[in-house]
């Protein structure tokens, strides 16, 4: 850390998010406003310099044949070394969110997309590249409210809170960062009990043939997506248990998101299921 500390840091900021205090320092003060726009949802400025984790952002300058790499550190750990400002900022944003997700004290972060539907949450756990955001976007277009395309933030009652960063849509003609409003939806504000947890993975020829999971199997299936599990197993499992207790748990492969969105909304709504 001492080596990093000796570099010429020109400005910084501190903020709180979900009970975690994080600091950011930069070598070029003019990038602070851009970085501020990338802080995790729910961040508030903090006056104290006493932080849980410090992020160091070094903007390199290329001169002649010398390439000036942009650098990102979380504590002493190098997180990015790139010539692209876009990649630097994206890595910064992802690292900050991970820092909050791992260290939040009163919430359990599960890697999942989340929407709200008729007073209950639909949770879509999945790894990066499994099609979470595409499915969330399809659900928003079908009338659901937006909670997150990255993390289900679960409290000790098993309810899901919004983590409403802009949706990061990859590929296709809508690629880029999109707000819920751009997709004709609204951001959910109140915490919701979970109505449905659907474990699905996109396959080109996949069909939605849901298989119900027992609560124990559903809890186990959430394990690979639960960020703070190794650090806080007791609290994480207690929150997850509450979350699965009142929820339907389904597993299936799936095809295109648009086709499956209506199915998921129907599965999440007991009255619609009964009518069918």
């Amino acid at each position, binding site marked *: 850390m001492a080596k990093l500390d000796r570099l010429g840091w020109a400005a910084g900021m501190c903020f709180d998010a979900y009970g975690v205090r994080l600091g950011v320092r930069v070598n070029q003060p003019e990038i602070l406003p851009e970085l501020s726009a990338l802080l995790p949802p729910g961040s508030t400025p903090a006056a104290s310099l006493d932080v849980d984790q410090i992020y160091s952002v070094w903007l390199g300058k290329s001169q002649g044949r010398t390439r000036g790499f942009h650098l990102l550190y979380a504590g002493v750990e190098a*997180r*990015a070394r*790139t010539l*692209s400002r*876009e*990649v630097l900022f*994206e*890595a910064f944003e*992802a*690292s900050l*969110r*991970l820092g909050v*997700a*791992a260290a939040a004290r009163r919430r359990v*972060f599960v*890697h999942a997309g989340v929407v709200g539907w008729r007073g209950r949450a639909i949770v879509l756990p999945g*790894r*990066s*590249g*499994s099609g979470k955001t595409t499915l969330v976007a399809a659900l928003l277009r079908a009338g659901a409210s937006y909670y997150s395309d*990255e*993390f289900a933030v679960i409290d000790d009652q098993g309810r899901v809170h919004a983590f409403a960063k802009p949706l990061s849509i*990859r*590929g296709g003609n809508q*690629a880029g960062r999109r707000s819920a409003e751009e997709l004709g939806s609204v951001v959910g504000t109140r915490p919701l009990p979970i109505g449905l947890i659907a474990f699905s993975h996109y396959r080109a020829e996949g069909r939605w043939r849901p298989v119900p999971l*027992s*609560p*124990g*199997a559903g*809890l*186990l299936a959430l*394990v*690979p*997506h*639960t*960020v*703070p*599990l*190794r*650090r806080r*197993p*007791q609290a994480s*499992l*207690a929150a997850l*248990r509450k979350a*699965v*207790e009142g929820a339907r748990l389904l597993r299936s492969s799936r095809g295109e998101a648009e086709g499956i969105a209506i199915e998921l909304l129907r599965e999440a709504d007991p009255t619609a299921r009964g009518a069918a």
Partner: protein
Amino acid sequence: VKPARRAEGLVVTEVAGELLVYDLERHRAHCLNPPAAVVFKHCDGSQSVQELARLLNKELGVPVDTDCVWLALDGLGRAKLLQRRVSRPAAAGRLSRRELMRRLGIAVLLPAVTSVLAPTPAQAAATCVSDCTGQAFGTPCSSTAPANCLCTCDGAGACLGGC
């Protein structure tokens, strides 16, 4: 033989008759279905296999024999949830899940222990990070957890892949 479950280094959560057991040493989570959960709960070093079978019989409300208990103990032993692994007597022959299921008639009565490795925070939240402007299809791009992700450019500026 009086098998004993591990007393330390486990976080046990019960949900609808099943147990989720988290191993703090190995960072593995195990789901014990109801028959395996009953055996695990009573496996305190004071009950013989025959006594465990009687308890299983009583709690599940269906007739089961010691083979069912041995199957549970085998699963618990493999998952390292017992203080010491126990083995079915060789004289009793090889234990077959298929044969046991034929005898019980219902698959859900077969004890089962399912396990997964708990992720580190970086593994759980790993994501591909886009640096694909002007890059050809298939060019590797970066991720927040390089050891766990395979991310490549899609030829249209996006970094896609799976973690």
